[in-house]
């Protein structure tokens, strides 16, 4: 067993985790980043991002009510976020942009602050168009410069808490060698920032589970370990997803310069009828299910139509913007198959459920309900988890943790029982012969989620049955999974985490006895107005009792 000790542990070295490590390192505390892959190229920002949602006073003026209103109406905020948290990331966004520029990330490819895409016609534009192709390398270098130790290929499985309820450490596995090694890290505070839940529902190509719009290595580990440790989750009943080309699943729809049209080239909404490099096509941002909805209504197929896009804008989109965004696989694909976007329209689809911004409830200091436990980015449930939100709350968490660790004494990691239990589980998986492969379990998990916690329609009986079947799957996994090496143990742990995460999804969905937004109930087909403006939270106390509550959106 490898043992480490630090003051502040960042679980996940994506955008949120590295920003937390940088902020805490600057304040002089001892930081470890534990990362499943390699921080230089991991997570949803691995190969780049090109839009940084931000407020820059010299560009957007000082009428903050306008700024909040316009950003609030766009997809990055949406209804399922607390406004006080939105204010935090908006107000710190420019500071982060200047910091990133100093780290060597190209925030002004043209030399000036330039805003493009994700734009609502008639409003100010808030998405800074930058080149994020090297962002993860720059953030990694800065985290190291600020003294953080980075443990690549260390997968965290559980957060450990002491008798008094505060964080004492974490456990997981080191997968650097063929034979996995258990890892226990002692710390006073920890940040969870493991990103989306990409593989809980079937992908758009069910036989190929890793064909997902966001990084398939992000499997809801943070939300699952937070829930097991007793932290509060929020908005788990609001299933969401993404849209993009069929069947090459890719995030970054905002990078396309085109219009969503039908087969005859008619725009499907009134936002814009001609392609605009300035605004992009807002349709899929404000109505991400439009492609699926239209199919169901018998109105498909629907295309991303770039045939009217000026050639110089198309060239820029394919060879500059898509590279900055890390989606130039689309460019390569077009070139390989001779797809000419001046003539060919690309069919878009709404991808199956991929939970992002549904998860750990945090406050304006990025604190979860467990003392010493923080969260940031796509694994949080009540704030924008995309680039700006992940970066800002990672930074806020790092700053707050640096103060917090000074106020608490060192405590033993404890949790001998859980550590032993996990060690025995890993040993059993690794020594079992002729057992079950993780893909078998992943397939059943995805089928159960797709049918029993469906994005189309749910009812109480299906949700209850699904919960029971999920319990059976967990039991079978514990008794039967077998792993040939550390890679397979990693994949097995991911499946176990997603099975655990199914519980709050099923329970919250069952308890929301109404139809609202993406939550569609056949047995409660109306909206319950007493739930207007309310978020549902869930947590489990020490003796396993589940608490479901509604609270007002802030």
């Amino acid at each position: 067993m490898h043992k480490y000790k630090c003051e502040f542990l960042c679980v996940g070295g994506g955008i949120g985790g590295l920003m937390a490590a940088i902020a805490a390192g600057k304040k002089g505390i001892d930081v470890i980043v534990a990362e499943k892959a390699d921080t230089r190229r991991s997570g949803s920002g691995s190969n780049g991002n090109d839009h940084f949602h931000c407020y820059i006073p010299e560009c957007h003026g000082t009428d903050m009510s306008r700024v909040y209103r316009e950003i609030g109406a766009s997809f990055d905020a949406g209804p399922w976020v607390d406004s006080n948290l939105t204010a935090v990331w908006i107000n710190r966004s420019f500071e982060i942009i200047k910091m990133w520029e100093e780290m060597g990330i190209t925030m002004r490819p043209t030399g000036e602050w330039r805003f493009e895409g994700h734009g609502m016609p008639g409003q100010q534009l808030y998405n800074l168009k930058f080149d994020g192709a090297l962002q993860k390398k720059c953030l990694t270098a800065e985290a190291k410069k600020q003294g953080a130790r980075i443990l690549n290929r260390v997968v965290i499985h559980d957060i450990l808490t002491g008798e008094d309820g505060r964080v004492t450490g974490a456990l997981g596995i080191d997968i650097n060698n063929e034979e996995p090694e258990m890892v226990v890290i002692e710390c006073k505070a920890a940040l969870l920032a493991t990103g989306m839940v990409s593989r809980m529902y079937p992908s758009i190509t069910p036989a190929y589970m890793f064909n997902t719009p966001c990084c398939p290595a992000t499997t809801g580990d943070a939300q699952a370990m937070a829930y097991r440790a007793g932290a509060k989750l929020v908005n788990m009943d609001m299933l969401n997803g993404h849209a993009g080309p069929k069947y090459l699943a890719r995030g970054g729809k905002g990078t396309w310069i085109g219009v969503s049209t039908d087969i005859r080239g008619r725009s499907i909404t009134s936002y814009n009828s001609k392609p605009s490099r300035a605004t992009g096509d807002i349709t899929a941002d404000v109505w991400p299910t439009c492609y699926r909805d239209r199919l169901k209504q018998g109105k498909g197929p629907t295309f991303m139509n770039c045939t009217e896009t000026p050639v110089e804008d198309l060239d820029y989109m394919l060879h500059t913007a898509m590279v900055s965004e890390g989606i130039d696989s689309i460019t390569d694909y077009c070139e390989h198959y001779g797809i000419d976007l001046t003539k060919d329209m690309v069919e878009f689809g709404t991808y199956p459920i991929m939970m992002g911004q549904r998860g750990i409830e945090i406050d304006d200091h990025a604190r979860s309900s467990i003392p010493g436990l923080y969260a940031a980015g796509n694994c949080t449930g009540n704030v924008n988890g995309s680039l700006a939100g992940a970066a800002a709350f990672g930074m806020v968490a790092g700053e707050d943790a640096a103060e917090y660790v000074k106020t608490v004494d060192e405590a033993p990691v404890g949790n001998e029982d859980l550590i032993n239990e996990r060690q025995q589980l890993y040993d059993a998986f690794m020594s079992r012969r002729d057992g079950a492969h993780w893909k078998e379990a992943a397939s059943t998990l995805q089928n159960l989620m797709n049918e029993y916690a469906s994005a189309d329609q749910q009812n109480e009986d299906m949700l209850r049955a699904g919960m029971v079947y999920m319990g059976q799957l967990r039991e079978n996994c514990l008794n039967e999974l077998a792993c040939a090496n550390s890679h397979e143990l990693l994949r097995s742990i991911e499946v176990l985490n997603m099975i655990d995460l199914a519980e709050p999804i099923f329970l919250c969905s069952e308890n929301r006895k109404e139809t609202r937004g993406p939550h569609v109930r056949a047995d409660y087909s109306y909206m319950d107005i007493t739930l207007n403006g309310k978020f549902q939270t869930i947590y489990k106390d020490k003796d396993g009792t589940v608490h479901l509550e509604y609270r007002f959106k802030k």
Partner: protein
Amino acid sequence: MPPVIDEKKCKKCGYCAAICPLDVLYLDKAAQKLLVRYPDECWHCKACMRDCPVKAITIRYPLSHMMLHYPKEVE
């Protein structure tokens, strides 16, 4: 087999295997061979291709991931 390795160019440095976010690639040090061990777990993100110092990697897009495109109808 999504990433395709040009055996003649590859220096077996292991960098691509280290940074692949999905742990698809594996450098077998004993055999001095770079293996595409888990091809169906590839995200087609191009990180390996971008970062290979000698440009020994290309990506093959599988037929399962076909990008549907339709010629604009000219009236």
